[in-house]
């Protein structure tokens, strides 16, 4: 499955297209993991297909360049294969993967200073791929509006919300350490960041 498939799969209750919610991705991951452990190699393919996009977004929130981010994702998959017997609860495989990826991303970012910050200017010109012509015009306005709303958020909010949005019930303690925030402030900060985004979207909608 591709990003575009998932983005267009379902309803229009939210503005723009809706994306696959994390709990559905996690369920698919658990299913793949179970099949793989039971001896079906296609289960591993399914697990990797389900979780690689999530790992990408979580790792990129650590401002790692693309090639470094890809290395971190690869390290995460090798760790899963080598330590699969340590995952006792198949339901937890999604969380095990994102936690491992975040830890590795944090370690790499701290260590080599390989983290050339990913500047927004670098990201901005990358237009959405695989868009059909008639969608493009209507969609571009909508995208611009949403992007602008996210851009208005403080840096810390953007990173925190990106991780939280792709995670399924993230471990706040680890997250707090990674973002150098007190553990008790993650919940309130997330709430404030979401409130800011809500306001930014409303203002963008009125203009």
């Amino acid at each position, binding site marked *: 499955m591709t990003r575009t498939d998932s983005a267009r799969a379902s309803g229009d209750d939210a*503005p723009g297209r809706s994306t696959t919610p994390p709990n559905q991705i996690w369920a698919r991951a658990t299913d793949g993991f179970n099949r793989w452990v039971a001896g079906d190699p296609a289960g591993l393919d399914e697990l990797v297909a389900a979780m690689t*996009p999530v790992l990408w977004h979580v790792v990129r929130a650590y401002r790692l360049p693309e090639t470094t981010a890809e290395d971190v994702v690869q390290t995460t998959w090798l760790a899963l294969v*080598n330590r699969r017997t340590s995952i006792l609860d198949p339901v937890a495989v999604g969380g095990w993967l994102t936690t491992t990826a975040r830890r590795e991303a944090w370690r790499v970012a701290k260590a080599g200073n390989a983290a050339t910050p990913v500047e927004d200017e670098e990201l*901005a010109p990358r237009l959405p*791929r695989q868009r059909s012509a008639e969608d493009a015009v209507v969609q571009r306005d909508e995208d611009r509006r949403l992007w602008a709303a996210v851009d208005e958020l403080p840096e810390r909010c953007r990173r925190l919300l*990106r991780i939280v949005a792709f995670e399924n019930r993230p471990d706040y303690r680890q997250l707090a350490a990674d973002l150098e925030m007190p553990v008790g402030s993650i919940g309130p900060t997330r709430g404030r960041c979401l409130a800011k985004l809500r306001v930014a979207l409303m203002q963008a*909608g009125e203009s």
Partner: protein
Amino acid sequence: MSELSRDALLGIVRQVWEERDPVPDGLVARMQATAAIAASDLDTELMALVERSTELVGARGSSAYTLRFVHGGTDLLLRIAVDGNRSRVDGWVVPPEPMTIRALPGEEPAIHDAVVSESGRFELTDLPVGLMRLRLEPHDSARPAFATPTFEI
């Protein structure tokens, strides 16, 4: 715009990032290949190193040495030649058996492979130096793959 729920807002955040920093083309396929190779290695039986020649230093700074591995009834002799930062491996499988030999440099997915000839010979050229292992995959699917332990070129 009406009041948005938390889930709707997080959905928008996902959507924005999926659009502006999409998963690179081919990343999923590359990760599937990496995971599959690593997983097949888990069940791979290791050959034992039984012999290692002292290094033969040749002219112009090149060098060569031999390694011999066994597993079950299969004998694998390798002659490894290093020239600068590239290397080549000439191998003999005894008794000869149709199989594919894959060189696995470090943790990267396989990039070099060769098929054993009827006389049991194979060669892998233009390999990097550093840590290396060879994975032997018999074409007879009833025979499981096996691999050498990691050795350093």
